[in-house]
């Protein structure tokens, strides 16, 4: 059983997704427990995988028993096992949360919604686990296709945003495919480990350079890395809340993972850093991204829009950590993938819960929210502190490593940008907290009867509240145990070539 976990983690959600239309045809209410049960199995498998990796080191799983360069293999090392745990845990939490929000936002579409939801997760897991560059493309397209559809059924303006995403996403995927094609022409192989062996002898080749350029641009589009994020704000902010809570933290992080894989596993740092100036370019782009994202976020009054622009800046942090290309910076980037996935998921879950209960996401209409939804706002405050970088919460630690990494690389401007962004985040979140906690209630709020003078306690439903509280607790726990996480997983997840 244990040695089959790598296969199970993909096959179980995949087959389960095929069954959802049948189950939904029989009894619609069973879809939700089915999805949650499947994701529990997935999460257990991911724990099994990381346990195996931690006890026996990295291993590979041959699909169909074909030897790697000819067949497809799963390559499981610390980094991919770590990402699997993140993806499966966050998707489990979002799935638990999704019940009420789907019932409210998409009452007629539960069955296809959950089918695509599982397919999206399958795609993301597949991207992380696979050791074959073409197989990665296939999974990328599974996740993207389900993503397009899930976004398109959102609120006003969602179809347009989804169509723009289709166009941009296809350019990204095709660029990735071109990169694969060029590598194939130059080497004749599609296996990541095999490519890593062959490529160092041909780093001078122009074909390899072009392939690398197309890989980078393709992943930048898919991961909404500045300045190719233009499709992202509209798409993520108009999607249904359960969908944005899933894709906002995960799609960008998985793309960041692919970026690290390509730059430091398939290619070696000596190519990615020395032969081409791509790291300098990426570093300065993320420098701009941090400020541009923060400033755009300041201009928003819609809470979800604000979060989406913060996400642009947060992706900038990760890319910055990758771009300084030293061990500490990369540790920070990988730790921030974990922390930011938690923080972003938590924030998007909270926004979904607020718009479920209050019916608005306008920052200025959130008066007395601490009385109405005390637990949700408590979680929001914890996450906000983490985003700003207050020590016990996890956001501080990844930022600390990122800053150390930029200093070690001698990039003082980057370190300053990271510090400034903490300040911007403080302003952004204090604005919301001020409205929610300290603004006197306007009498106009009383829309349910007229004479309501005290806000009624009206907490989010339990299925929404539990994931939010778990995520908020997770943010604190990740902060407290971040030393352990780094020493037992992340330091091995940093590519060995550093």
């Amino acid at each position, binding site marked *: 059983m244990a040695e089959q976990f790598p296969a199970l983690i993909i096959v179980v959600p*995949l087959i389960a*997704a*095929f069954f959802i*239309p049948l189950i939904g045809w029989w009894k619609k209410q069973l879809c939700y427990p089915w999805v949650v049960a499947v994701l529990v199995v997935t999460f257990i498998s991911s724990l099994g995988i990381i346990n195996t990796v931690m006890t026996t080191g990295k291993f590979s799983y041959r*699909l*169909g028993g*074909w030897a790697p*360069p*000819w*067949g*497809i293999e799963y390559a499981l090392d610390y980094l991919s096992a770590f990402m699997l745990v993140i993806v499966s845990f966050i998707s489990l939490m979002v799935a638990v949360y999704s019940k009420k929000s789907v019932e409210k936002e998409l009452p*007629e*579409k539960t069955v*296809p*919604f959950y*089918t*695509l939801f599982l*397919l999206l997760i*399958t795609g993301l897991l*597949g991207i992380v686990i696979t050791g074959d560059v*073409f*197989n990665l493309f*296939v*999974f990328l*397209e*599974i996740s993207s*296709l*389900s993503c*397009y*559809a*899930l976004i*398109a*059924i959102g609120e006003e303006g969602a179809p347009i945003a989804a169509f723009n995403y289709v166009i941009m996403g296809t350019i990204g995927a095709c660029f990735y495919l*071109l990169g694969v094609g*060029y590598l*194939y*022409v*130059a*080497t*004749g*192989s*599609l296996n990541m480990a095999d490519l890593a062996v*062959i490529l160092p002898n041909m780093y001078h*080749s*122009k*074909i390899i*350079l*072009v*392939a690398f*350029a*197309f890989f980078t641009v393709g992943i930048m589009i898919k991961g909404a890395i500045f300045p190719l994020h233009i499709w992202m704000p509209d798409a993520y902010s108009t999607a249904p809340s359960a969908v944005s809570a899933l894709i906002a933290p995960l799609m960008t992080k998985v793309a960041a993972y692919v970026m690290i894989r390509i730059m430091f596993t398939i290619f070696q740092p000596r190519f990615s850093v020395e032969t081409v100036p791509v790291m300098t370019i990426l570093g300065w782009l993320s420098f701009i991204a941090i400020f541009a994202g923060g400033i755009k976020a300041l201009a928003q009054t819609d809470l979800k829009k604000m979060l989406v622009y913060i996400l642009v800046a947060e992706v900038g942090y990760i890319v910055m950590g990758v771009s300084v290309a030293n061990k500490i910076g990369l540790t920070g980037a990988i730790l921030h993938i974990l922390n930011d996935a938690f923080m972003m998921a938590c924030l998007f879950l909270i926004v979904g819960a607020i718009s479920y209960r209050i019916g608005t996401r306008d920052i200025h209409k959130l008066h007395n929210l601490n009385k109405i939804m005390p637990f949700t706002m408590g979680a929001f405050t914890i996450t906000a502190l983490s985003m700003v970088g207050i020590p016990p919460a996890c956001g501080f630690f990844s930022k600390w490593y990122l800053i150390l990494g930029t200093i070690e690389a001698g990039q003082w401007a980057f370190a300053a940008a990271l510090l400034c962004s903490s300040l911007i985040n403080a302003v952004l979140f204090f604005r919301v907290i001020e409205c929610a906690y300290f603004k006197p209630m306007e009498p106009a709020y009383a829309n349910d009867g007229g004479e309501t003078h005290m806000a009624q306690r009206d907490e989010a439903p339990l299925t929404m509240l539990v994931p939010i509280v778990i995520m908020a607790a997770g943010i604190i726990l990740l902060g407290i145990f971040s030393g352990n996480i780094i020493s037992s997983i992340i330091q091995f997840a940093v590519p060995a070539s550093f």
Partner: protein
Amino acid sequence: MKVIALIAAIMTGALLIYGIEEMPEWGDPNSPASSHVSPLYIQEAIEKTATPNMVTAVLADYRGYDTLGETTVIFTAGIACVLMLRKKRKGGGD
């Protein structure tokens, strides 16, 4: 927008043409693409998979997992259309 599109297209084209220079001659049987992984497919496919058509052998056997992904893509697209286009049964037409 048209200008940006034109610039993007030309830049992409220029990058691709830059790469062409070192591409192996078209149809060269000794190019890496034809000499690293693929000869084994041609030589062993019949023996290992009992399929005379090598494309089928690779598609359904060596890289069968890609094909599973491919069918999943079709399924995804089908369900995506159901999700987006199915209407409530009350209005009838637009």
